[in-house]
């Protein structure tokens, strides 16, 4: 399992955090301006929160928030009056520290003589207000790239020499955020002078440098109470939890660079317009060209350093053509530079996880999905060691309770098991052996304190016998086995579960996890279909527990009598007319393979891409530990590498007949 | 067109043909056929040969906002006029309530276009005739300061257009309901010095052109323009004439019509009452609605002593244009001083089926648009009557008069004088897409 990097330890505070009311921001602005600084901060303009010069607190986006998804940004009104209750907009400090067009030299030519006069920068003294941890990380990257090596961009260095930073720790997050994965946020750790965390109480301000201390002292704010401090800490921690860990960074460089010919490069190039918006909004992209403005004689020339983009056809052009003539080449260049080769050049990835390239891509291409599809992580090994994981070995468990779910489906509670079973994860299964019958893979439909619960449909001789067990009967068990639903990835995000018939069984532990910690997830929707109303499993949960826990449950059946007033038809019809936006949603799907194919297609049409769609596959298994060969599919053993896979991981083997 | 005029020497004194090359320093291409028999002008005909572009068909099935973008392309010199006639026609049909500041900004936009167009015409197209140069560029060799001042003054108008519309030619911000972007007050105030400088240049220019020798000419044309009780007409008013026409602008078709003339790719306009030619443009406006000129413009007109001559001597239109140039700068400055950003820059609207008709005053005269709109707001049928189409008959009538004055002159001088007269109309190349070739056939 890839662990989320722990939040870096904060620097020792030079002074304890102080408390400012929201109205207390104006005196801070005044102090910064009295120091001769232009204050660059957030303001609402042209339908977004952008950075611009701020002279009055009235310009700040008080009460404004935003709604972001791949390719989509909308300003929204918040229900409170927070000043910094928004996520990052399109503009970043780059526009001030590394402007889009800067004159760098003036050259003249007269009677055969040439002169070059570098344009010496006279940068304004700037104070950034409201920038976030990921943006400070981006500045750190630029410091390394533009002035940390043997050659220095003099204009950048001059602009950075005297930059004061009043940063804000994030108490909000957008579905496009992934600073947590890149180790750049949401906590403020270094690089700022003053740190602000805004809570419902107001602003907690803490100095991190002598300059910040001077400011804080001049503000004459009281020391924050322990309760105020606790709330601030909690809100930032909750932001980290909401964001989760959307990009598997460890090993990403090697995995990406191993895939120069992955078919996904060509697929993304069909969507990519190569407009270069991603590189322009990226706070670290630094590629430029020198453009010249000349008089008609070409004798008086001003050279300008101008933002360029590796997506422009001419960027890699030489006489005879471009080295990266195809859009797929240019997309690969960008993604591999950001996430892989940058690390070789400069020691860190070139990405800070701000998510701008995701939101501001006009066609909504999500770098996280592309990276996951091109460089998939092998599903993490189970964190527990399965019990009896050798051929022929089974642990013994005792049936403690039997419950008839439907005419052909029975739930068995097993207890007195090795505690390792209880540490299993949602989506895992067990091999169940009743001497005299072949061992069967059975989904674990619940984990209990001293065992687990199996839900079995009596479809064949062995399963019918299992359904007939009584309390006190013993069975052999090996497990828990296989991969689990990726709850860590889904934390803080929306989840759609689509399932049919017995397929609900391996998903019930997911719903248990949601009920146990509802705050950990965004909206959760369950779409469930069965043959008839009498075939619906887990009626208590479907009709009571789950809806009460804030899970949206929608049911459908193939055939119904007069006692059924709900929808009739295939499960995908349940969300044909739904209004939710799938652009940042994950989906878990389990059911017959034909049903899953239709569902995956329907989800894709609603914007849930292959890297966010997860399925659990069923195959003939005898060992469950990758030794018998029955469940092989392409390069995968379903038992060991699965049964939970992302569609991106399966690629075109998913749904293909005969594999 | 297949027949190209070639410089032809005069072969037989009794049966001479004078030919001038394509008329220059007008906007567009056309030809003129002048037949002289026994010293009498028996035919003066303007042919319009430039390839047609079929705008009235191109807008069919388009949305009103698309139409505003498309009809601008009829003319690179007066695109705003086309956008204004169209946007007002649609807003009138759809019953869109317009913020007063939106209305003020539209007047300001029109000021920008009048400045650009009139300054261009006075200095770059027309003045070289009076001063004896082939072009303003050639004129700059002797009158560099004047030409530089003129270019500076013209730039002030273009900068105003650029701020309001993104670019001076084919601006992008005029939308049904208002503006896709309204300027900030500070942005407008930044233009003030250049406009004030332009105003001073325009005042000097008007004094200067009024001092130029005017060729003799006298004809009492029928004058037509918009008139509004409170303001010099840009976007609002009634259609009035020097002989008593006074109708709502939407009723243009009750008085006027277009017809096709052989040998011309433009449709000519005329009145239904059979009186024939009528004159649009600065001379008509200054005469018919001079009372609403800005006081500074009125003062310049009075001081010029041209108020009467402007009406009867087409060559004197350069003075009328100067007076209107002063008006445009002065009103632009007033509008900027009074500017408050609109509270609703872009009002919402719903399409409605019906006929959208409106006229505004392009720099060179009344521009009438009429659209039949379906219930989705799509155009089913369009009629666009540019000022130059309407002025063609007046140009032909004036040529007969002017020719009588010049036939006695030497060949070169005569032809130059006729060209100068045609330029006095500021005929719009692009509007009617005309190609003027002037030949004088003396049988």
């Amino acid at each position, binding site marked *: 399992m890839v662990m989320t990097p722990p939040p870096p330890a904060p620097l020792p505070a030079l002074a304890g955090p102080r408390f400012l009311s929201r109205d207390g921001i104006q005196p801070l602005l005044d102090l910064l301006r009295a120091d001769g600084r232009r204050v660059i901060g957030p303001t609402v303009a042209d339908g977004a929160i*952008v950075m611009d010069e701020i002279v009055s607190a009235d310009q700040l986006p008080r009460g404004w928030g935003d709604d972001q998804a791949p390719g989509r*940004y909308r300003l929204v009104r918040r229900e409170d009056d927070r000043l910094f209750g928004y996520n990052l907009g399109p503009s970043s400090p780059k526009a001030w520290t590394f402007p889009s067009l800067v004159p760098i030299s003036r050259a003249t030519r007269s009677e055969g003589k040439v002169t070059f006069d570098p344009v010496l920068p006279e940068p304004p003294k700037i104070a950034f207000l409201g920038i976030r941890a990921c943006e400070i990380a981006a500045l750190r990257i630029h410091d390394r790239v533009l002035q940390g090596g043997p050659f220095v961009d003099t204009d950048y260095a001059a602009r950075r020499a005297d930059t004061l930073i009043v940063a804000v720790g994030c108490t909000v997050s957008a579905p496009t955020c992934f600073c947590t994965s890149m180790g750049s946020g949401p906590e403020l750790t270094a690089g700022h002078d003053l740190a602000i965390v805004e809570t419902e109480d107001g602003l907690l301000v803490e100095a991190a440098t002598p300059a910040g201390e001077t400011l804080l002292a001049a503000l004459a704010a009281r020391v924050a109470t322990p309760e105020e401090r606790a709330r601030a800490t909690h809100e930032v921690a909750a932001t980290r939890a909401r964001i989760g860990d959307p990009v598997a960074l460890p090993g990403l460089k090697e995995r990406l660079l191993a895939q120069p010919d992955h078919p996904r490069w060509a697929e993304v190039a069909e969507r990519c317009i190569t407009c270069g918006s991603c590189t322009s*909004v990226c706070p670290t992209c630094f590629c430029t060209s020198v453009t010249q403005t000349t008089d008609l004689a070409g004798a008086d020339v001003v050279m300008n350093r101008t933002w360029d983009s590796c997506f422009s056809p001419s960027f890699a052009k030489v006489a005879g053509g471009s080295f990266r003539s195809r859009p797929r080449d240019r997309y690969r260049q960008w993604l591999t530079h950001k996430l892989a080769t940058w690390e070789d050049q400069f020691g860190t990835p070139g990405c800070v996880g701000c998510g701008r390239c995701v939101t501001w891509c006009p066609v909504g291409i999500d770098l996280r999905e592309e990276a996951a599809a091109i460089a998939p992580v092998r599903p993490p090994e189970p964190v527990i060691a399965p019990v009896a994981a050798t051929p022929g070995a089974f642990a013994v468990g005792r049936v403690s309770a039997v419950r008839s779910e439907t005419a052909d489906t029975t739930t068995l509670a097993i207890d007195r098991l090795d505690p390792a079973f209880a540490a299993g994860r949602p989506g895992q299964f067990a091999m169940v052996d009743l001497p005299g019958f072949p061992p069967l893979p059975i989904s674990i439909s619940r984990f209990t304190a001293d065992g687990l619960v199996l839900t079995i449909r009596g479809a064949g001789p062995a399963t019918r016998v299992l359904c007939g067990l009584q309390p006190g009967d013993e069975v052999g068990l090996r497990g828990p086995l296989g991969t689990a639903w990726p709850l860590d990835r889904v934390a803080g995000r929306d989840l759609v579960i689509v399932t049919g018939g017995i397929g609900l069984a391996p998903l019930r532990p997911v719903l248990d996890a949601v009920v146990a910690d509802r705050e950990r997830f965004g909206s959760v929707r369950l779409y469930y279909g069965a043959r008839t109303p009498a075939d619906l499993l887990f009626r208590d949960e479907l009709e009571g527990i789950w809806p009460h826990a804030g899970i949206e449950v929608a049911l459908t059946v193939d055939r119904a009598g007069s006692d059924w007033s709900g929808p009739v038809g295939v499960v995908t019809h349940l969300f044909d007319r739904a209004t939710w936006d799938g652009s940042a949603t994950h989906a878990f799907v389990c059911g017959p393979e034909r049903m899953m194919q239709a569902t995956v297609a329907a989800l894709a049409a609603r914007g849930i891409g292959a890297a966010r769609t997860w399925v659990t596959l069923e195959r003939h298994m005898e060992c469950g530990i990758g030794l018998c060969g029955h469940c092989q599919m392409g390069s995968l053993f379903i038992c060991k590498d699965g049964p939970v896979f992302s569609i991106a991981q399966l690629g075109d083997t998913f749904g293909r007949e005969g594999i | 067109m297949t027949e190209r005029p070639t410089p032809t020497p005069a072969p037989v004194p009794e049966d001479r043909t004078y030919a001038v090359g394509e008329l220059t320093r007008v906007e567009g291409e056309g030809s003129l056929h002048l037949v002289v028999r026994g010293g009498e002008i028996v035919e003066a005909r303007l042919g319009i040969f430039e390839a047609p572009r079929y705008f009235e068909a191109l807008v069919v099935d388009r949305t009103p906002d698309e139409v505003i973008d498309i009809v601008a*392309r009829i003319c690179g010199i007066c695109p705003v006029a086309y956008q204004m006639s169209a946007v007002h026609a649609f807003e009138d049909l759809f019953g869109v309530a317009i913020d007063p500041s939106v209305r003020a900004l539209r007047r300001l936009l029109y000021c920008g276009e009048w400045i650009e167009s009139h300054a261009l015409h006075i200095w770059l197209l027309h003045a070289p005739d009076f001063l004896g140069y082939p072009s303003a560029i050639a004129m700059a060799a002797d009158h560099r300061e004047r030409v530089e001042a003129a270019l500076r003054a013209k730039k002030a108008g273009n900068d105003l257009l650029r701020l309001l519309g993104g670019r001076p030619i084919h601006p992008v911000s005029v939308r049904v309901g208002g503006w896709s972007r309204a300027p900030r007050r500070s942005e407008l105030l930044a233009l003030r010095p250049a406009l004030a400088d332009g105003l001073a240049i325009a005042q000097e220019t008007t004094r200067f052109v009024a001092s130029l020798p005017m060729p003799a000419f006298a004809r009492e044309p029928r004058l037509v323009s918009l008139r509004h009780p409170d303001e010099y007409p840009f976007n609002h008013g009634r259609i009035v004439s020097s002989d008593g026409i006074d109708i709502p602008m939407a009723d243009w078709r009750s008085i006027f019509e277009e*017809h096709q003339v052989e040998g011309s790719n433009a449709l000519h306009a005329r009145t239904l009452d059979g009186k024939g030619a009528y004159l649009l443009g600065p001379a008509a406006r200054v005469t018919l609605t001079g009372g609403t000129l800005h006081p500074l413009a009125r003062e310049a007109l009075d001081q010029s002593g041209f108020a009467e001559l402007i009406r009867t001597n087409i060559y004197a239109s350069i003075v009328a244009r100067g007076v209107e140039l002063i008006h445009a700068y002065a009103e632009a400055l007033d509008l900027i001083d009074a500017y408050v950003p609109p509270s609703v820059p872009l009002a919402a609207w719903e399409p409605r089926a019906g006929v959208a008709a409106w006229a505004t005053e392009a720099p060179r005269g009344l521009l009438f648009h009429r659209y039949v709109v379906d219930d989705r707001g799509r155009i089913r049928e*369009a009629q666009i009557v540019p000022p130059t189409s309407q002025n063609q008959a007046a140009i032909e009538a004036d040529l007969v008069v002017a020719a009588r004055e010049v036939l006695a002159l030497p060949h070169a001088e005569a032809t130059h004088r006729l060209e100068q007269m045609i330029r006095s109309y500021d005929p719009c190349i692009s509007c009617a897409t005309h190609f003027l070739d002037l030949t004088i056939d003396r049988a």
Partner: protein
Amino acid sequence: MASSAAPARPRVGVVKMASCDGCQLTILDLEERLLDVTERFEILDFPEASSARSAGPFDVLFIEGSISDPHQAERIVELRARTRYLVTIGACATAGGIQALRNWGDHAAFRDAVYARPEWVASLDRSLPVADLVPVDAELRGCPIDPDQLLELLAALATGRRPQLRDESVCQECKRRGAVCVAVAKGVPCLGQVTQGGCGAICPRYGRGCYGCFGPREGANVDGLLRHLTADLGHDPAEAGRLLAGFTAWAQPFRSAIDATGGAPEGSRRSLPMAPEAARRAAQEGAR
């Protein structure tokens, strides 16, 4: 253009075909820089600006407008023969212009819709870019062209270097100028991604979507944009295709995309019956 230095004072012509004159007006709108240009270039023939005429030969000839009648088709060939370096300026000359929408339709129907006596009107059945008839050495895009690009080209011609006309998207200019993307933030369909920059991203900076007047950029992924507009955002395919049916509609790949989506507006696509307006005019002609 030859890589050697251009002659000291290149002889220049400016002529028009079917157009609105806005691009040649951009030359006169160089304002305070106009006189510098006329000092460095000899203006041989520029009928809109000067009565002094010449038939060439030209070192540089700027062509505005599309080729849309038989005379223009002959004339452009003659002009090419008298020109060393031929530059097309604007959407009409480089792409056929807005009038090229008639290329989708029945030209006779167009003529009949506007003129009561169509037999008096001579025009080609299509409006074509200059490069369809003669070789072109350089082009300036736009409806109208951009004055800074014009100056850059003139400076390049004056010194004999290659002009710096970047092949980037409008999006990059938009972002460099700090404008907020109207497609992402407002859901406004915008052609900036597939359109050649050079205008300075005027439309998005003025709160509306780019309408493609600078024409398709090299390798423009129009299919990708249309797929996004239709499949992801739910626009009707023909309406999405219509976005392309503007001032550079005839340029590829816009043209093919318009065909594929059925995006050509009715006014350019249908064989119009004689429009009521023209019918009325015809009736009036008949009455006289």
